[in-house]
């Protein structure tokens, strides 16, 4: 359809057109996503290649000061009068060398074996004394820290050579060399993004990225309850943990557990997402219907449940759903005879249904909140033209409201889906994973992958297996999210205002 044809459509048709186009393009976008990943790696390697080439060129073209700055950080800056900046570079180098000697190298050198010195018992009179050997876990963790620090210093080093070379150019062209004060000032304007990002990015690098790399590495070791530092060593095992999970024949119970829990996780995520979404939207529509009074009261009734911490409300729900809990008491009072339904403890199907229903109680208020806002934003002319076409309220809902909502919230729907795959609280607090079964390894019928992961880490110390599960969960979530994120309008429209 050409632009001119599109412009002539009425808003209603325009919308329908956009809506169908959106889904028509889906498969193409999925493919584009994987192509993008490929492109990313190509770019990465060419980028590295270019960087190395530039690094060499700068050295060749550089004067004596530039060349020396390849060995002594900041020398180029000293030579051109930027004393403070040069000192900062130099301080980095000195600090790094000190760091490597005292901390970095001792750990990094054991990285390939993760330690060899065993823990020993030494006689001490009538007593025994434990002399601990290498701690594989700390060796691995500190190695990751060392590698991370090295990367940062490498970045500073390259910046240092670039800076030295740039100063040489500026000087030869006779241009003004910025003083330290001027450069500092620039951080509030031209380089404001550096100022804004440095603190958060540092925090994220230390407390999210480094631990994450550590745990990804753990997935390739045998760090579990039979190999627990500081008492015993663990070491690299390659893909063994993954093959235990995905290969049913050799993985035994772990493999079965993984496959069945994955199925349930997906079923759970689908139901949890769509029940919340559809029911929440219906309630939101009812509240926002013209002529309904006390809108804010109704909304508050639902929203108030968001403010109660989930560990309180869900633990309470757990109590209420027991055989002697409030729900059974209520049912007994209503029916006049004793009702004792086992909601959570014995029947797998019953427990799963209960969990999904309770999740509605938890999740619907969130949908109501966001849906109310969106509903108010639907362009009135859409309804106008529909009414002219003779569409009744039902038709208006199915042809405008629903598609519009879907269209606008599709990206957030996927976010919610991913969120539900990782929805720890509802499952853990409500059922604790139960009812227990003999068929799974350390998991029950309502356990989803993350709650299993948690149990393996906290109760079983099976860190290796847990890390492998975490990586697999991540791969699923990341694929889903990146596809939708690249698809979502916001990525393309964010420049609309610029």
């Amino acid at each position, binding site marked *: 359809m050409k632009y001119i044809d599109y412009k002539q459509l009425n808003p209603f048709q325009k919308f329908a057109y956009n809506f169908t186009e959106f889904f028509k393009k889906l498969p193409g976008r999925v493919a584009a996503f994987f192509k993008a990943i490929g492109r990313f790696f190509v770019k990465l390697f060419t980028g590295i290649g270019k960087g190395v080439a530039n690094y060499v060129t700068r050295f060749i073209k550089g004067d004596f000061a530039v060349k020396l700055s390849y060995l002594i950080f900041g020398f180029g800056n000293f030579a051109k009068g930027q004393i403070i900046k040069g000192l900062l570079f130099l301080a980095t180098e000195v600090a790094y060398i000190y760091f490597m000697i005292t901390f970095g190298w001792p750990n990094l050198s054991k990285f390939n074996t993760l330690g060899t010195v065993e823990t020993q018992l030494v006689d001490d009179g*009538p007593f025994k004394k434990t002399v601990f050997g290498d701690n594989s876990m700390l060796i691995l963790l500190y190695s990751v820290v060392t590698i991370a620090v090295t990367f940062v210093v490498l970045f500073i080093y390259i910046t240092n050579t670039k800076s030295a070379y740039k100063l040489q150019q500026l000087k030869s062209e006779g241009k003004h060399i910025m003083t330290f004060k001027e450069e500092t000032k620039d951080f509030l304007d031209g380089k404001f993004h550096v100022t804004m990002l440095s603190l958060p990015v540092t925090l994220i690098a230390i407390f999210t990225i480094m631990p994450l790399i550590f745990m990804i590495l753990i997935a390739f070791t045998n760090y579990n309850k039979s190999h627990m530092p500081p*008492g015993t060593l663990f070491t690299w095992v390659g893909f063994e943990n993954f093959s235990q999970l995905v290969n049913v024949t050799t993985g035994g119970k772990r493999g079965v557990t993984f496959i069945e829990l994955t199925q349930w996780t997906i079923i759970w995520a689908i139901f949890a997402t769509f029940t919340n979404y559809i029911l929440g939207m219906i309630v939101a529509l009812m509240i926002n219907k013209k002529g309904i009074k006390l809108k804010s009261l109704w909304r508050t009734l639902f929203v108030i449940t968001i403010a109660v911490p989930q560990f309180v409300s869900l633990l309470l729900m757990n109590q209420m759903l027991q055989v002697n809990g409030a729900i059974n008491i209520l049912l007994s009072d209503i029916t006049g005879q004793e009702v004792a339904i086992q909601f959570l403890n014995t029947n797998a199907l019953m427990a799963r249904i209960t969990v999904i229903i309770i999740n509605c109680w938890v999740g619907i208020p969130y949908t109501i909140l966001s849906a109310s806002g969106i509903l108010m934003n639907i362009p009135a002319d859409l309804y106008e033209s529909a009414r002219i076409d003779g569409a009744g309220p039902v038709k208006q809902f199915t042809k405008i409201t629903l598609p519009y909502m879907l269209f606008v919230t599709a990206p957030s729907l996927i976010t919610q889906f991913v969120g539900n795959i990782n929805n720890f609280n509802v499952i853990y607090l409500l059922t604790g994973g139960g009812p*227990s079964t*003999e068929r799974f390894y350390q998991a029950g019928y309502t356990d989803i992958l993350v709650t299993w992961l948690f149990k393996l880490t906290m109760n079983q110390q099976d860190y290796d297996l847990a890390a492998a599960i975490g990586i697999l969960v991540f791969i699923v979530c990341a694929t889903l999210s990146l596809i939708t994120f690249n698809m979502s309008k916001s990525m393309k429209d964010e420049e609309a205002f610029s």
Partner: protein
Amino acid sequence: MKKIIAGLLAVMMMATAFAGCGGQTSTGEGSSNGSSGEGSSTDTSLFGEEDNISLKVWGPDASINLLKKQCDAFVALYPEKKISIEVVAQGESDAATQLLNDASTAADVFGLPSDQINKLVNAKVIQEVAFADEVKANNDTNVVEAATIDDKIYAYPETADNGYYLVYDNSVVKSGDEAKLETILEDCKAAGKKFIMDAGNGFYSCMFVFTGGLKTDGLEEDGLTQKFTDYNEDDVVATMQAFSKLFHDYSSTFQSLEVSNIASGFSSGTCGAGIDGTWDVVANQTALGDKYGAAKLPTINVNGEDKQIVSMFGYKYVGVNAAAKFPRAAQILANYLTSEDCQLERAQELGWGPSNKAAAQSDFVKNNVTISAILAQAENSVAQADLADQFWDPMGNLGNQLIAEKTDPTNTDAMKQLLNETLTNIKDV
């Protein structure tokens, strides 16, 4: 007076300890110092070089005050040494997890239940007991046995009571009726009250197979696979059927609930009897007051024969952290805390059943209805030690299946299948 007795006792213990250890280690300052220190009530030579000692001790909340008192008494025994002891509340069930997470911030001396010993020994974070011969001589064999791996004892026995017993309202369950499960259920039904046990929890539900003669028998050499004693399948299945049938016959009386509901049920008058853990003794006593009744688990009628219910039974220990900064002082303190005196004090103040033979024979313990009930049940029990991680879930599931509405107690084949599947899955690592 008490202090002097305690002091004398400590000396006696140390003397015994040396008698044992002297033989094992031919050299070492410990044994030579030991002989010279004999007879003095404040023999500090055991500590060796250690001084300015600071120790952290973990105990469950209920015992904190008593534990502090006992630690103070311990410090007073050694006026020449500077000892400071920090007593921190930490539930026994979490102790092992915390120790595995980070042994260096964990307590030097800590209370732990029997089923965690294996884990800690594998991770090498628990120190072997130094006063082994003394421990063996003074404590119940089963308790010592459960802490022994490869002939080495890894923790000091503290109690022999970490199990469950029958608790009942004696205005509901008539005197004499507490001996049989059938009559208990009948009494509860007549009074319109509940009989509560946690049938979906492997700790309790294992009684359904243990009673039939199927018992655990340690682990295979891999340290992971569960072994079982020889058993007669027909007996086990018949017992399971008997339980299942009772629960179905009394379905409105029998409730499978977490054990904390028992005390709540007593206080609100809805519960007539229950199978509860020993940690809830105080709550149950308070809830029932004069109507409190306690007994060992009852019998169940299997094909005309009354069989004593066999339960899972654990013990509590005091362990020494392998990362302790003052290993000698920690061992001496752990030994002190599990001495006859301290155990008796705990029996008197907290109602904990002692593992020390002399303390168990004391008049107080013999006259205490709860502790005697628990110790009587210990006679008919399987030790909670050397259990596979895979033991609990399949057992819990077995319990859930027995009480499930759709289960037909008369279907022998289905029961047989359930039993075999459960065992296969426990063994499948």
